[in-house]
């Protein structure tokens, strides 16, 4: 299937294999051919090995087996520096910039070309590159003063400055507004027309179709196919990505006995950097239904949930909880998580950052169970008996794969970590359950376990708030969907009748207003 190794290709991979530990095989016998002057999209689900593969080309990891050829010659890439020598540069999803430095200082960092160190000249050069490809950047601006898209621009210029002919972009659009994405694509086209090869990792199909010349699909670490973009369709790509056409078939019961449980009105928030992140948000979460929250990453989802959970202060607005036992209103604004619990509000929250916030990685399952309840009682000592029981129960009922309840949670796999976390949050019999990206990084089975748990909660009369990124899931799971765009509510839809395009449109509704400004 793959071509012979030749200088007709900018980059070729042959039989590249990489394993982490003994269990996880990230890439298996992957072949790849990249032409000069093309945009090659690398498509695959979470955990399909896209980023690992790219990291090997960029010198971050070293393949366990297999070869990499650049311009038809076998290349030995053991470090990012080696990769630069082969004119390969990668823009990571998490920017690697020194906050304290200016754009130019970051761009020239690590370059030892033997020339005199001349910042002014470098700034001039940065301006030239910007002009050539259509970037907008102030070379003297410090990184900590920059927006996300500006930082990304610095990252790309950094790679171009080093004369890279092969650019790898790891999910570059994840942090961008639609308008910024369009700008980025213009720049990418300019680079392609300049003869550069661009590998772009993404799992957004419409972007793949919009920007790429060819698409390589990875699944479970293996190369599935490489096709010409012009000759393929979303459906075909999806099939290759997931293996077979999977109808999600998430069960969804009709909500019954719904009543208002949580009323958010006029919520405004400014983050510590002075950016307005929530703008006049109002909605009602009802008991007995799942309320979905859709939006591009960074549209205010995290801030919204954390504000309700008492983790971030609001500029203005109210968060009113209606107590199911006596229908009294309880105001949650400006209350700490501890105070909220002391008010008898049964609010559970599964945060996006599982091991950094929801759980303590170095503690065992039992101690993690105790996080919410350790303070109960007047004793100065903790009682580990109830959490031990709870841990055993969750391990059994949710089929958590772990050596024992005494195992530190950081040693569990992603799906099992999530089961532990969701299990704990549900165990406190919440009346409001907020979950953020609960199936991110999980395999299909674990995902369904989570969907079922959420549905069960809904049927028990819990008001579930679900923040998700996968529109198909949102549309099949949620009763109502709120769409956030740049920190504001751009629409509230019925989950049963809403169209995917409709949601997509609302997510990108506020044209011309960048969320990062």
């Amino acid at each position, binding site marked *: 299937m793959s071509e012979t190794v030749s200088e007709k290709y900018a980059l070729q991979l042959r039989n590249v294999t990489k394993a982490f530990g003994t269990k996880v095989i990230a890439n298996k016998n992957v072949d790849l051919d990249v032409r000069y002057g093309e945009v090659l999209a690398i498509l695959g689900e979470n955990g399909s090995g896209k980023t690992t593969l790219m990291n090997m080309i960029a010198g971050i990891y*070293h393949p366990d087996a297999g070869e990499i050829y650049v311009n038809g010659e076998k290349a030995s890439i053991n470090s990012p520096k080696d990769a630069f020598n082969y004119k390969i540069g990668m823009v990571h999803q998490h920017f690697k910039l020194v906050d304290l430095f200016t754009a130019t200082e970051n761009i020239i960092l690590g370059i030892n070309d033997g020339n005199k160190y001349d910042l002014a000249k470098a700034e001039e050069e940065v301006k030239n590159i910007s002009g050539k490809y259509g970037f907008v950047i102030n070379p003297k601006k410090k990184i900590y003063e920059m927006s996300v898209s500006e930082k990304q621009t610095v990252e790309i210029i950094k790679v171009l400055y080093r004369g890279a002919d092969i650019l790898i972009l790891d999910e570059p659009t994840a942090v961008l507004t639609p308008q910024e994405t369009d700008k980025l694509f213009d720049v990418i086209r300019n680079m392609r027309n300049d003869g550069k090869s661009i590998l772009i990792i993404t799992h957004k199909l419409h972007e793949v179709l919009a920007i790429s010349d060819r698409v390589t699909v990875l699944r479970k670490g293996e190369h599935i196919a490489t096709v010409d973009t012009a000759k393929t369709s979303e459906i075909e790509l999806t099939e290759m990505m997931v293996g077979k056409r999977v109808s999600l078939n998430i069960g969804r019961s009709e909500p019954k006995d719904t009543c208002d449980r949580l009323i958010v009105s006029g919520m405004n928030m400014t983050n510590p950097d002075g950016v307005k992140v929530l703008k006049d948000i109002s909605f009602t979460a009802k008991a007995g239904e799942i309320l979905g929250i859709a939006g591009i990453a960074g549209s205010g989802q995290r801030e919204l949930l954390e504000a309700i959970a008492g983790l971030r202060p609001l500029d203005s607005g109210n968060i009113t909880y209606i107590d199911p036992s006596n229908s009294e209103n309880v105001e949650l604004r400006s209350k700490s*998580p501890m105070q909220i619990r002391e008010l008898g509000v049964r609010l559970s929250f599964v945060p996006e950052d599982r091991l950094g916030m929801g759980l303590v990685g170095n503690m065992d399952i039992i101690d993690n169970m105790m996080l919410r309840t350790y303070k109960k009682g007047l004793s100065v000592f903790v009682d580990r008996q109830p959490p031990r029981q709870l841990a055993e129960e969750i391990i059994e009922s949710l089929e958590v794969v772990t050596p024992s309840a005494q195992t530190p949670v950081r040693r569990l796999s992603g799906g099992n970590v999530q089961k532990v976390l969701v299990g704990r949050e549900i165990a406190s019999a919440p009346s409001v359950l907020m979950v953020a990206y609960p199936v991110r990084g999980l395999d299909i089975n674990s995902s369904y376990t989570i969907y079922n748990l959420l549905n069960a909660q809904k049927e028990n009369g819990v008001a579930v708030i679900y923040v998700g990124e996968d529109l198909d899931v949102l549309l099949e799971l949620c009763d109502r969907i709120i769409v956030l765009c740049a920190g504001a509510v751009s629409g509230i839809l019925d989950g049963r009748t809403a169209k995917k395009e409709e949601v997509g449109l609302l997510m990108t509704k506020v044209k011309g207003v960048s969320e990062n400004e």
Partner: protein
Amino acid sequence: MNKEIAASEKANAHSKSAPFITITKRDASSLKRNIVVRIIAIAAALVVSALLTLFITGENPIKLFSTVIEGAFGQFRIWGTAQSVAMLLGIALALTPAFKMKFWNTGGEGQVLIGALASALVMMTAGGLPHWLASILVILAGVLAGAIWGIIPAIFKAYWKTNETLFTLMMNYVAIQLIKYFLKVADGSGSSTVGPSLLLYGRLPVLFNQQYMLNIIVVAAMTIMMYIYLKISKHGYEISVVGESENTAKYIGINVKKVVIRTMALSGALCGLIGVLLVGATSYSIDPNLAGGNGFTAIMVSWLAKFNPIIMIFTTLLIVVLSRGAENVSMTLGLNKSFSDILTGIILFFIIGCEFFINYQIHFNIGKKRKEEAEDNGNN
């Protein structure tokens, strides 16, 4: 999974094949292996120390060894050793809750000294009070002063993230200068200590006719209580959560600022208590060198024990036995007494270094490659 990721350690510009050495973080190391690694490290340290001593003194090694043992456990030395262990262990225990919270309290020395100073002030002036009341005041003053010395940097850390390592470090020297000032003012003679002739009141009781007994009992109780406090108290649990992840602490509603300040108050107060013991129950005198650098050594003792109070008994013993042994060696051989510091330093270097072999795994790829090639040949 992240921990398993084997990245090439050396940038490795020379070799054109796989990197020669890769280092990975060990997921979990068996207890047995950990102990073996540490024993090897200590043995190696002892060998190096012995060789060094041999080189400098030319004595025969057996005699050196017996001199060390004699220095630590000899008839006239054993109580002194017990006292040293008690004081060093006491400070290490005091620092431990702060360290578990990832608050680098390098101010143990100053917290001990300021506690001692406050006690000394009471001991000098509490003439009109009944003895029992004076004694209580001696204790309270020292504990309170230590707590204040701990709270000050904690407040700034909690509210403004002021670097606590540097802050507490500087507080040491403020305390030292305050003691020097006290010496000038209290004892007009210009002497470098204020001694028993001035610190008369509220001395703590001597138990069982043994000067150091009270200290030993207090520290033994402290060890058990600290173990319990960290292991099963709610405060101990909060300390662990804050130390592991401040975000998680906030998420579940722990008041992080309160925990930081409270824990440092405890840490400082216990250091202050050691100061009380040093002045009020041991020497009845005070000078800037009262803590003898134990505030710093205790940091290493606590860290080497992985913040476990029980293991801390052994790390303290190790340090104290070696330094008192070395002290004896230098005394009998007429060497400068600083010799024991050199040996302590060497032993610490080895133990500090050996942690690497407990936490990380080293793979030599050359060996692996040869093996693979051999297998390939076998297959062909």
